[in-house]
């Protein structure tokens, strides 16, 4: 990110898109810097693809402006904009070979044949498909097709690369490999990139910044760590990673009472006054679990009600011994072994105030 200043490469201002009575995007604004990799993340129907298509000019917005490299492109048809695009379906031309697919945009530019061939060869090496260049799309695997689509989109050296759920049609393993490949490629070329995805892991792994969307509005914009550690709303906290949601009351001295369990509320508690109903969010991996009370500051007794084995860690469902709502805590495999975690085991838990996030109760997702 070049926070140092300078105008952003792409700027979206107060964008609204209506389909009849339905508002798909409601007054959305954001800016993308040159060379940045931005992910639009959200559940299906949140407006992320609509926003991407508005930026591409494929479905032009009802109101608002889009500026690219200092030019107002709000009303321009896609042909008069500067972008390459990869769709979820890849939309490879089935009757053209890999080479011809990649060369499709170049051939139109009346470039000399030799120059086209050189550029295609370069792109084939870039995406690692040189030995498949004479094949047709149907003869390639999903991952290979995806890379052809990427090469075709990059062939004309556009200023902006748009990726519409480019990985969701692939197997889990291929998806993880291609994630790195795309990120690496993007870094290598330095092209400003926007990717739409509903997969939070993908967004966290790839993006410089994530734009979390829901119901046609932006919930939060930030780096992956910002979004994960400081979700701006219960929705973001719930959508990214796993979170315990607990109803609580604010009591005096910056403390909160979670159905009887009283603990320090951290910074967030200062925003509320005693007596407020609030929603408390705490990620399972941030819950501190100990064998005896002395180890934790503010520890309270809990009983294990259920244990889920999730490979590298165990997710324990804990019920406060003095009553109150059940919550989850993640224990690494060896900790879980040491504590001999099983149903009915009595342990102590601490809710560390530095990780607690508090939202007004009505905001609860």
């Amino acid at each position, binding site marked *: 990110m070049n*926070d140092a200043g300078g105008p*952003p490469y792409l700027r979206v*201002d*107060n964008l*609204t898109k209506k389909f009849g009575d339905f508002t798909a995007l409601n*007054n*959305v*604004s*954001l*800016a993308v810097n040159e060379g940045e990799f931005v992910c639009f993340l959200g559940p299906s129907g949140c407006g992320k693809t609509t926003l991407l298509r508005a930026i*591409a*000019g*494929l479905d*032009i*917005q*009802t*109101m*608002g*402006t889009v500026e690219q490299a200092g030019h107002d492109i*709000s*009303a*321009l*048809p*896609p*042909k*008069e*904009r500067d*972008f*390459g*695009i990869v*769709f979820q*379906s890849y*939309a490879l*031309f*089935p*009757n*053209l070979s890999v080479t011809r697919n990649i060369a*499709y*945009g170049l051939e*139109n*530019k009346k470039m000399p044949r030799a120059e086209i061939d050189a550029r295609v060869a370069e792109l084939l090496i870039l995406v690692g498909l040189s030995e498949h260049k004479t094949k*047709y*799309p*149907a*003869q390639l695997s999903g991952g290979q097709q995806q890379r052809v689509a990427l090469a*075709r*989109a990059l*062939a*004309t050296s*556009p200023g902006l690369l748009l990726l519409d759920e480019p990985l969701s049609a692939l197997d889990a393993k291929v998806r993880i490999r291609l994630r790195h490949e795309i990120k690496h490629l993007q870094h290598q070329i330095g092209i400003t990139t926007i990717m739409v995805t509903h997969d939070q892991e993908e967004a966290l792994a790839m993006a410089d910044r994530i734009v979390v969307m829901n119901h046609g509005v*932006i919930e939060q*914009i930030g780096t992956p760590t910002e979004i994960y550690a400081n979700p701006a709303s219960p929705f973001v906290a719930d959508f990214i990673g796993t979170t315990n949601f607990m109803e609580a009351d604010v009591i005096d001295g910056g403390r909160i009472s979670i159905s009887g369990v009283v603990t320090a509320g951290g910074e967030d508690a200062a925003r509320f006054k005693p007596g407020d109903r609030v929603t408390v969010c705490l990620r399972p991996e941030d819950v501190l679990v100990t064998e005896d009370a002395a180890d934790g500051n503010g520890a309270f007794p809990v009983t294990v009600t259920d244990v889920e084995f999730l490979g590298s860690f165990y997710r324990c469902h804990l019920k406060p011994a003095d009553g109150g709502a059940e919550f989850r805590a993640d224990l690494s495999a060896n900790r879980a072994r040491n504590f001999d975690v099983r149903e009915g085991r009595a342990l102590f838990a601490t809710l560390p105030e530095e990780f607690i996030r508090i939202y007004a109760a009505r905001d609860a997702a």
Partner: protein
Amino acid sequence: MTQSAAIGAAQPPIVKPKVSGEDWIMRWVLVGIALYLVVTILLPLYAIMSKSFKNADGAYIGLANYAKFFSTPALFWSIENSLTVTLICCVIVVTAAFIYAYALTRTCIPCKSLFKGVALIPILMPSLLPAIALVYLFGNQGIIKDWLFGYELYGPIGIVMGECFYVFPHVLTIMLIAMANSDARLYEASDALGASKIKTFFTVTLPSVRYGVVSAFFVCFTLVITDFGVPKVVGGKYNVLATDIYKQVVGRQDFEMGAVVSMVLLLPAVFAFAADRIVQRRQVALLSACAVPFEPKPNRLVDGAMLAFCCAVGFILTGILAMAAYASFAKFWPYDLTMSLKHYNFDLMDGGSWDAYFNSIEMAAWTAVIGTAMVFIGAYLVEKSKGFHSGRTAMQLLCMIPMAVPGLVLGLAYVFFFNAPNNPLGFIYHTMPILVICTVTHFYTVSHLTAVTALKQMDAEFESVSASLKVPFYRTFIRITVPVCLPAILDISMYLFVNAMTTVSAVVFLYSPDTALASVAILNMDDAGDVAPAAAMGMMIVATAAGVRLIHAILTRGILTRTQAWRHR
């Protein structure tokens, strides 16, 4: 960098997307094709409608013509006659086609592709030809005349028999599609729950094809009530609406009454068409993406019965074709049955000539070439152009109209419209172009729907990708869209060619001595008593249509294996 809330800002203006030069090209071409349809279907329909409210001098007389129609028993009884034979045909054909399709899709009978092929025989001929074959079989000198137990062929019996033969493949096609949409999982579930075969039939099979059956019924209804060839030859004194139009116009030169009967015939056809469209829309919703195709298991009893049924139907279909062929070669029916080609010497016959045959070929070729180009480009623009919703919706509606208009009504409408003294397009009247235009329009809807189906199967983002690569749409159309849709394009051109060869109804009012057509020649030779030459001309059409289908099959296979190697892994 972050959300900038536009607090208190005025509502930003609505963005008006810029329409590029390419968009304008697409819109103008779309408007051009839409205008073609307005001129060749809407305006003629208006002409025939206004004619029905006028007297012979062209003065407006309100409903007087209709009053005359409904007070003349000989005329309005035709409505009842038409409905009677049509409904009987619908019941017979839908039932037979249902069983035939069931046998082909849900049982293990052998030779399925042979039976499928045999069922297509009637598509290759004008409806006049099976009627002529019926005359040879059951007419006054028919070889199996006794099978009618003394009843006369000429009249409702002949019409029902001929129509059943003629519409069978059309109805069967719909039934086959409906049956193909079966989901094996439902049958497995029914089996697992211990339901009997008969219970499964009534709870799974029938509900899943009910829309197909209803749709088949309406298609059958429309085809039979608007067909003119069969009742013309074997109708005798039994008047139906379709023959009435012809009689009023050609026999009595009463154009106004012809227009009135046309409007009366248009009503049930439009109704059946609208009902069919509604039903088909529902059928689509029934399909589920994860359905598993049904694999029939052998069952001796059912397979045996079904095989017997298919053989019987197949025997009737081939029998009628064989009869027509035999009649065309027999020297002097029924006295001298030695084979000869004398009936193929059309130039010696009243109402026929080899010129007519070659005119037909020429007309069919033009129809196939021009029609396919126009239909495919029109469908492409409707499906793939951006914005311009009003224009695209209007075009979609226009494309559906021709299907609802019976051929005779269309033909007569052209007479009123293009022969009007003040029509600047009048110069094409009595020429080859008007025959081509009329035929393209007549068969526009089915061709359009075929093209739309093929285009819908293409990735919706080809155009978006091309635009992002700055490739003009026409380049992508030629390099991607056309090659990918080539099988459908061939289907359309074959459909247009074969129908142009066999159609009688629309062109019967439009040909001139210079542009006589083979199908019309059959009609005229039959009228003049040259029945064997009429059969011979019919066989020429059958042979030509069969040849074209063969070429089409070879071409399609060649394309699929060679230029479309990409379809296979």
